[in-house]
C-alpha cells in the first residue's frame, strides 16, 4: 500500500511537539510553533521580520573569504555551501529602518558553516561599524554562531579583536549598539561582539555560552544541569538585559531606537526653527 504523500515543503513538522504546520503559516507566525518552539531563521527571513517594508540596502553582498590558510578541502566546501544556501558567507549587513528609525543591521545565518566567523564576516561587521560611525547611526547585530571558522585558523581568532575594536570605536562616538542573541551563540562570537552591546537581548531558549556544552561535559566529566547556558540562565546570571519573544522583537527594537534618538539635538533644532533659544 502506498502512503499518501504530502509534497515536500508544504508542511513542516515541529521538532519539539511533532505537529505538522503549514509552511506558509509558519512564516506568518515568524517561524514559531504554538508549543513555543522557535525554528531557526535565515538571515533574509529575519530581515523580512524586522525591517520596515523589507526595504534594505545591503552592504558588501559579494564579499567572500580568501581562504587565508589555503586549508585543505575548504575551497570546495565553501562553493558547495554557497550553492546550497544561496549565501556568499554567513552574514548579511546593511541599512534599513525599524519602526521608522534608521539603523545598520547585521544578521548571522547559522546555515552557513554553522554561522562560524571567518574573515568575510569579520570584515563585513567591521565595515558596518565604520560606516555607522561615519553616518552616526546605531547598529543592531543578530548573532547565530557556533564560534570561529576553524578552517581560517588564527585569522578567525583575529576577527574577534578586529570587530571588537570597531565596536569599541562606535561606542566611543556615543552611538547605540544592540545585540540580539539567537540560538546558538557560542565561542568566539560570544567572547567578542555578542557581549559588547549597550543592550543585549536574547530569544527565549537560545543556547548562549563561551564553551559549547559538549566541551564542558568532556572537561568536567559530568552532565550539565537542565537549562544550562540557555537565555534564561544568562538572564538569571546577569549577562542579558531582556529575553524578548520573537513576536515582540521588532517593537522592542523600535522602542530602544526611539529611546536613543539624539533628543537634545532634535529639540534644539526644533526650537531654533521656532525662533527660540534652547533653554
Amino acid at each position, binding site marked *: 500500500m502506498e502512503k499518501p504523500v504530502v509534497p515536500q515543503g508544504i508542511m513542516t513538522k515541529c521538532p519539539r511537539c511533532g505537529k505538522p504546520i503549514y509552511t506558509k503559516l509558519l512564516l506568518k507566525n515568524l517561524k514559531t510553533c504554538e508549543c513555543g518552539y522557535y525554528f531557526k531563521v535565515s538571515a533574509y527571513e529575519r530581515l523580512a521580520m524586522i525591517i520596515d517594508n523589507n526595504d534594505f540596502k545591503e552592504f558588501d553582498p559579494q564579499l567572500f573569504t580568501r581562504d587565508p590558510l589555503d*586549508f585543505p578541502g575548504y575551497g570546495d566546501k565553501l562553493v558547495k555551501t554557497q550553492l546550497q544556501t544561496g549565501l556568499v558567507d554567513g552574514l548579511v549587513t546593511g541599512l534599513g529602518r525599524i519602526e521608522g528609525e534608521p539603523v545598520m543591521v547585521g544578521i548571522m545565518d547559522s546555515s552557513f558553516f554553522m554561522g562560524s566567523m571567518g574573515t568575510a564576516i569579520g570584515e563585513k561587521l567591521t565595515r558596518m561599524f565604520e560606516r555607522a560611525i561615519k553616518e552616526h547611526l546605531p547598529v543592531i547585530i543578530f548573532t547565530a554562531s557556533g564560534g570561529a571558522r576553524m578552517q581560517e*585558523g*588564527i*585569522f578567525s*581568532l*583575529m576577527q574577534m579583536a578586529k570587530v571588537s575594536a570597531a565596536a569599541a570605536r562606535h561606542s566611543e562616538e556615543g552611538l547605540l549598539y544592540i545585540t540580539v542573541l539567537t540560538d546558538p551563540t557560542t565561542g568566539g562570537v560570544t*567572547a567578542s561582539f555578542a557581549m559588547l552591546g549597550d543592550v543585549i537581548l536574547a530569544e527565549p531558549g537560545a543556547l548562549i555560552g563561551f564553551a559549547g556544552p559538549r566541551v564542558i561535559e568532556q572537561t568536567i566529566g559530568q552532565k550539565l544541569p537542565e537549562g544550562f547556558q540557555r537565555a534564561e540562565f544568562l538572564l538569571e546570571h546577569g549577562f542579558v538585559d531582556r529575553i524578548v519573544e520573537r513576536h515582540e522583537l521588532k517593537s522592542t527594537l523600535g522602542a530602544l531606537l526611539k529611546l536613543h534618538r539624539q533628543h537634545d539635538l532634535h529639540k534644539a533644532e526644533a526650537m531654533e526653527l521656532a525662533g527660540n533659544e534652547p533653554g
Partner: protein
Amino acid sequence: MDITPWQKVKLARMPVRPTGLDYITKLFDGFLELHGDRFFGEDRAIVGGLAFFEEIPVTVIAQQKGRNTKENIARNFSMPHPEGYRKALRLMKQAEKFKRPVICFIDTPGAYCGIGAEERGQGEAIASNLAGMMMLKTPVISIVISEGGSGGALALGVSDRVYMLEHAIYSILSPEGFASILYKDAAKAEQAAKDMKLTAQDLYKFGIIDGIIPEPPGGAHNDYEFVMDRVRKVLKENLEELIRKPVDRLLEERYEKFRRL
C-alpha cells in the same frame, strides 16, 4: 634539522620551559603582585602586578603554568576563569591611569571551560578585554612565551606589539580540539598542527605577529639566560619606541594593526 609543527606543540608544552613568573622575576625588579578582580575572586592562573623594567615602572601580567601537578592545580593549568581576565583588565586600566606601559606574557591552553566560568560570563570577560585593550591609552606589549590558546590568549594579546618565542604556538584551538571538530578524530592532532599553521614562523609570515624571539638550540629550557637576554632586548627596544608615541597615534596604529587582518 627542521622542527615539525607537532614537535613544536610538544616543545611549547614542556613543563621545563620558562613560565610567566620566571620572566617576571628575571627581567623585572621589585615585582609587587596585586590580586583580585574586585568582583568575585582571585584567579591564580593569571599573575599581575607592578615592577620596574630597566628603571621604568610597568604593569606586568602573565598567564602562569605550574611545574608539577600541585602547582598546576593551584594555577588551574593556566586556564583562566573570568576573574583572571577581569583582574588583568583592572590592572591595565590602572596602568593607563598612572601612565605605565603594560607587558603581557601569554601562556595558556585556553580560557577555562566549566560551569562556574560560564555562570560568571567567560565570554563577556574576554570580550571586554578585547575592546578594553584596544582603547587602552598606554603602550602594551604581549609575548607568547609558549602556548597561545584561542580567545583565552587573545584576551591578553590586543597589543601594540605582539611577539612569539621561536618555538611557541598560537592558534584558534588546541590541535587536539581542532582535529576532533574538523577530522572527527582527536588522534589526528599531528595533521591538525600542520594544517592550522600555528607556529611563530607561520604567524610572522602572515603578519599577525611583529617578530620572533630566538631560542637556544633545543629550546628555551636549555638556556634561560639566553632567552631572558633576548626578551629583554625586545622589550627595551619596543618600549623605548612606544612610550615616545603620542597616545592618539598609538591607538590609531593599534587599531590599524588588527584592522588589516
